[in-house]
């Protein structure tokens, strides 16, 4: 895993991604319809400059990765992809469920997934701590600081005709 090869792949990915972003920005800019009066210094010049920069830097990094010596002094590193996936699952679950089942359960799930990703095996305890933390945040921010974290449409239907 820690060979020059995986480093090269990383460099190539970085260069490719930057290059692709540059091309995307350039294409989007070219598609922008602009009123003719603004033609000289309209909303397209800056995006084009940025796109050019991205393309040049991306090409430089890519060239270095494919043909040059790997200049960057860094060893390739091992990564635990399962943990990354778990944290991601937690985040996606939270964003999908948040407005439906509400802040507290959705966020407890996120906490649980994150704790598991960091190797915790005490799921019940983790869930309890997540629940307490999410509830504390809900109470503090909704009642103390006047923000509105969602109660959840599903929950609201379960308890109709409450005072507020």
């Amino acid at each position, binding site marked *: 895993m820690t060979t020059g090869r995986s480093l090269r792949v990383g460099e190539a990915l970085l260069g490719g991604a930057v290059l692709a972003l540059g091309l995307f920005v350039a294409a989007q800019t070219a598609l922008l319809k*602009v009123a003719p009066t603004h033609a000289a210094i309209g*909303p397209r010049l*800056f995006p084009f400059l*940025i796109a050019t920069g991205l393309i040049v830097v991306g090409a430089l990094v890519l060239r270095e990765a494919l043909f040059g010596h790997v200049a960057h002094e860094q060893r390739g590193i091992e990564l635990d992809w399962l*943990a990354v996936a778990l944290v991601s699952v937690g*985040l996606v679950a939270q964003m999908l469920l948040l407005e439906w089942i509400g802040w507290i359960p959705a966020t407890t799930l996120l906490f649980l997934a994150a704790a598991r990703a*960091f190797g915790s095996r005490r799921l019940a305890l983790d869930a309890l701590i997540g629940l307490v933390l999410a509830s504390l945040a809900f109470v503090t921010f909704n009642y103390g600081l006047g*923000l509105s974290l969602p109660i959840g449409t599903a929950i609201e239907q379960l308890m109709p005709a409450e005072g507020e």
Partner: protein
Amino acid sequence: METLAALGHGFSVALTPYNLLWSALGVTVGTAVGVLPGIGPALTVALLLPVTYNLEPTSAFIMFAGIYYGAMYGGSTTAILLNTPGESGSIVTAIDGHEMARQGRGAQALATAAIGSFVAGTIATVGLTFVAPLLVRLALLFGPAEYFALMVLALVTVTAVLGDSLPRGLASLLFGLALGLVGIDLQTGQARFTLGIPEMLDGIDTVVVAVGLFAIGETLYVAARHRFETEEIYAIKGSMWMSKEDWARSWKPWLRGTAFGFPIGALPAGGSEIPTFLSYLTEKKLTKHPEEFGHGAIEAVAGPEAANNAAAAGVLAPLLSLGLPTSATAAIMLAAFQQYGLQPGPLLFESNPELVWGMIASLYIGNVLLLVLNLPMAPVWVKLLKIPRPWLYGGILVFATLGAYTLNNNAVDLVILWIIGLIGFAMRVLDVPVAPCVVGLILGPLAEQQFRRALSISQGDPSVFFTHPISLAILVVAVLLVLVPIFLRRRRRHADLPAETPAESV
């Protein structure tokens, strides 16, 4: 004299019990969150933004000033006891600070960092008090061309001077600039790069990007790495107090560190990394115990930590008087101002003197509060370091998503947060610096506006940037800042090619 009167008025605002309370609350939560591993000052400020949403601006910024200074103090505690510097400014502190902790002198390292930060912070705040009005007067001479040149200078320094790989810094900067393009074009009202998503018309929020890169990206990275790494925390033993010798070896580095930190931080191209390195090198040259450097020399904690804090105060000068952020933390502070519909700059001193001077006055107060808070309470902060990692990072995610969601009460921000987090993770893995992206995102749209304003005034003639003397001078400095390091590096490589050592061992 005018300045003193304004400052006096600021104190009368900051010293009301109500605002004093917010200041105390700010320094406390700032320190507490800043101490947590994985949370640097930039993220601390970003995560605590929602807390201030319902305050009126003056109190909010008094609290922010406290959070800002508190986060700097907290960050040094983490650097010393855990050897995980939360930002580039405390990398140097971590080297000898962590060695001291390993030798059981953690308490003294924390003490010299705290007292040094107090001394440096106070002197630098005095500096800020007098420099900011001067900068305001200077700023009145500036037109759009000069502002654009200044912004280029700031972007160049954040990108080129701080990182060790120019293409990587540029990639990060350009990514930030590209993100800044999203939304309605301010001059023509035209939507750009919104991909047809209505929530993107307002642009991508700097806070979401900062939290995504720093909190989500960092959490993903630590999650991916934590099986392969172990960390050691050293308990604080014995007396908190510094011996006579510790004092004797600390006070000069504090003052010299301040002398490096404030002026460099206050330059529109500043930042806190360079002064900390300069301070370290100077102390190493001047000390009677050079053999201790790298093995727990107290000077090597006292000097750089003072430099770091003085620079943190210095950075506020261009931020408040020119609206120019030169660090990731300052970029988020600027985003906070924009949330309140305020644009820092010369006009802010005119239109909102209460806010500006109240904030500056509260920096003096915050420093005193922090000294009181940090010396006796250090053991409490150390306990925060021992929070089990699964719960710590679970908690970071909870508050990161809370901050992103409450910005607009919109789940779309959570999607953006996650995507930016994945990108931040990739940047960490590929060793791409994050700060240029955040600064680029917030400065990009401002720079574009000034650029186009300058060109409309000159009726499309691009030579305005080179015929105005101030603008030309600033651009020349920017170019030199890029070229000189490249030139020096090349010469050094020619000079000692055979003796090339591995770059860093931090």
